[in-house]
């Protein structure tokens, strides 16, 4: 795995005080928090920053991390030293000498409140569940819920879809050792899921320790942006180009919807920006959403002699002043 330079990530010197570390973290957290940030890669950067702070804010972890030495560079290949964690006193679980465990994610008490799945392999190898730094679990404990995000297209939200997920979970073997298992789960997502909606898969969260109930897996649905439609709740909006004669005289036009093409009546005297509503043509649900069609009147270009002549005729015969009200 690759070494991570937590000081560099937070933009502080190795000699930074706890206050300086905290200030740096708060500034970067505000900058990259995925819910409010417009920066690209905000989520990845935020996780990086959170992990760095998780280590540098804790005097024990920071001291242990510093012991690795300042010669390491970000991205270099790295292994924790064999006597990792020795010489530290821990408030929670003790070191288990002689146990060479592969680091794992998920389960266990571990650092802070956020999910172990968020940590890098680098962090897990140094501070994860099987290192002396993890707090003691102890006793029967219900498995925690896991949360994951699933991105679906608008069409998939409309029709429903099946999605395959890979979940990595620790499994305790009969000899007491822990191995990371990849568990493939196929989920049937029904039609009509909206942005941010939660989907529960009972019992697919963290397995229980010592007899408790397994946690649930919650998927948070995110609907990817679509080239044609804009989504708002269950409603969709489509911008629909029309010719001037179609808008002025009205027309019966074929229009796309998520469920297929439909005929729609454009009323005579329509203008750009006007919205028409196709009831029930949005995402399914009770009640289903609507499709709004925003008309966009597009002018034919006056790029041939004939076209110019037609426009000249319009000017001469229509007696039309669009600025009549402006002069007031």
């Amino acid at each position, binding site marked *: 795995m690759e070494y991570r330079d937590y000081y560099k990530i937070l933009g502080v010197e190795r000699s930074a005080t706890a206050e300086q570390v905290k200030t740096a973290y708060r500034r970067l957290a505000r900058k990259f928090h995925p819910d*409010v940030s417009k920066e690209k890669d905000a989520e990845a950067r935020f996780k990086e920053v959170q992990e760095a702070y998780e280590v540098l804010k804790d005097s024990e972890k920071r001291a242990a991390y510093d012991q690795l030495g300042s010669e390491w560079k970000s991205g270099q290949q790295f292994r924790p030293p064999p006597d990792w964690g020795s010489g530290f006193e821990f408030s929670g679980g003790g070191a288990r000498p002689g146990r060479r465990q592969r680091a794992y994610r998920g389960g266990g008490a571990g650092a802070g409140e956020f999910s172990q799945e968020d940590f890098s392999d680098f962090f897990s190898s140094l501070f994860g569940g099987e290192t002396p730094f993890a707090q003691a679990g102890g006793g029967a404990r219900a498995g925690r819920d896991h949360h994951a995000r699933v991105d679906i297209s608008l069409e998939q939200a409309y029709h429903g879809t099946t999605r395959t997920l890979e979940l990595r979970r620790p499994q305790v073997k009969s000899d007491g050792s822990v191995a*990371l298992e990849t568990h*493939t789960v196929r989920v049937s997502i029904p039609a009509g899921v909206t942005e941010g909606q*939660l*989907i529960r898969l009972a019992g697919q969260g963290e397995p229980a320790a010592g007899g408790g109930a397994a946690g649930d897996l919650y998927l948070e649905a995110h609907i990817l942006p679509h080239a044609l439609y804009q989504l708002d709740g269950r409603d969709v*909006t489509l911008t629909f*180009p029309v010719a001037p004669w179609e808008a002025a005289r009205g027309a019966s036009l074929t229009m796309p919807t998520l469920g297929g093409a439909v005929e729609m009546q454009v009323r005579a005297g329509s203008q750009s*920006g006007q919205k028409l509503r196709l009831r029930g043509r949005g995402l399914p649900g009770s009640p289903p959403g609507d499709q709004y069609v925003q008309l*966009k009147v597009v002018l034919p270009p006056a790029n041939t002699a004939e076209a110019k002549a037609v426009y000249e005729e319009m000017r001469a015969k229509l007696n039309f002043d669009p600025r009549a009200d402006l002069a007031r």
Partner: protein
Amino acid sequence: MVRVTTHVLEAHVLTDSDWIGAAEICQMCRLELAAVLELGDLGLLSPRETPSGWQVPATALPRLRLIGRLMRDLGVNVSGAALAVELLEAQRALERRIRDLEALAADH
């Protein structure tokens, strides 16, 4: 690593017919009970009373989870997080409207 393929699982989509109790909200949204009650006072929740305590519709959860994240990650207090959430939602609505208007103005 051992791969184990399971059957297709039926997912239960949480809708406004699913009611979530206070304890579950605290766990799922990682909020303290005091914070959840304060959000109720601020009018962000429309709970119903049942014999087993009060409940909110599951459709409130994404918003509550967002509040939980803002409070935890950015150190915002309850009223700050509530205000932030309302502003973020208003911002998204405005962005949608802007995209509509830009679609009108764009070259065809």
